[in-house]
């Protein structure tokens, strides 16, 4: 799926309230996720954010993505070397895309809890999670998407 098609797909899902209304569930301790769609080309999730929930810097290995904000706002940081991250705040009704090569971080922004649709094509599989070690070196950990999108606590 092209970036434009993926963004259109996410925005269309955002408008289809009956598809995700029952999955809206805010938890102060962590983001919550609901799988909305999965086929050979695309996988889509509803994510609920509050209280500065933060993904940390990560990439999506071979997948591109699109995010459509339904309610509230999220802040995206694009990682840069030798400069502060490029920041943008994305509000309800807006959307943005990223490619497999992009490294970013998404955080809840503002006081109002946020609800977002995330579409990935090809379906998300592996991800890279980044940490900065004590020497300042950037380290990439290869993780399954399940480690990012599935909760550790009892369902």
């Amino acid at each position, binding site marked *: 799926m092209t970036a434009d098609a993926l963004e259109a797909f996410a925005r269309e899902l955002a408008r289809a309230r009956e598809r995700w209304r029952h999955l809206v569930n805010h938890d102060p301790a962590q983001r919550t996720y609901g799988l909305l769609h999965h086929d050979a080309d695309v996988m889509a999730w509803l994510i609920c954010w509050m209280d500065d929930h933060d993904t940390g810097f990560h990439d999506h290995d071979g997948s591109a993505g699109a995010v459509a904000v339904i309610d509230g706002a999220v802040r995206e940081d694009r990682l840069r070397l030798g400069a502060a991250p490029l920041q943008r705040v994305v509000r309800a009704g807006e959307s943005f895309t990223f490619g497999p090569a992009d490294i970013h971080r998404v955080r809840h922004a503002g006081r109002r809890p946020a609800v977002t649709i995330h579409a990935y094509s090809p379906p998300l*599989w*592996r991800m890279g999670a980044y940490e900065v070690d004590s020497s300042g070196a950037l380290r990439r950990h290869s993780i399954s998407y399940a480690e990012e999108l*599935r909760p550790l606590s*009892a369902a």
Partner: protein
Amino acid sequence: MRIDVHQHLWSEPLVAALARRRLPPRVRRAPDGWWLDLAGEPPCQLELSSEDVGRRAALVHLDGVDRALVALSSPLGVESLDPDEAADVLDAFHAGAAALPAEFGAWASVPLRDLDGAVGELERRLAEGFAGLCLPAGALATPAAVERVAPLLDALERREAPLFVHPGPAPAEAHDVPPWWPALTDYVEGLHAAWHAFAAIGRRAHPRLTVVFAALAGGAPLHLERIAARGGPLASAFDPGLFYETSSYGTRMIEAMVRVVGVDQLVHGSDRPVVEPPDAKAIGPATWEALARANPARLLGARALAA
């Protein structure tokens, strides 16, 4: 509750019933121990000394789960015996399973030559608290075979109980092959055939049935591109009612299945005592929680706790 959906256990009543038989499937005592005779496999020595129920219950906890579901081993071929012959072994299996401690639940098995009787048997076993029905993959080997067992699948759907598709029966004739041969050829092919047969007509006829395939269905959904190229139905690879248990596989194959069907369709199964389960930590903590706790709860429903 964390669950292992696939174990076997040679309970005393089951061993006694198989030892009463003169023809395969049977167990026999020889000077060098207990042996299992199957029509299509080389004789196999049984380690009954390690089948102590207390030891097996302790292993459930050591594996990091709270309960294991035991099944009659479909390669034995008990389900396809003459109904009277089958009844003796099946009654012994269910009696042995029902007497196990709280660490265990069990899948029911029914005689498959007399399907009218089998539906009644299944209803009775589900009422007794068995988790669902275990069918040999051979009973679902073609679309026509899936139609034949439709009364059983209807009964499961009515009771909101799952189906467990297990490899078997053993190939009909013994070949001059090493002991691992059936597990890597006949059983993988049999699981593929059952998965495709359910995709072809099973899902349409049984829209609410939940099914778990043993051994990741032999990786059948990984053939996604070939299914598309040959005009097969793709939807089953993304069917939220189809689950895959992980026995005999490790992180590489599990990751490959995650890539196609998604983590939400995989459930932990060990196939003890036939094989040892993989190191749960190597899979990743969130993946392990999904495989052992969240996904079995969706597969089994209320039966996860009651089994």
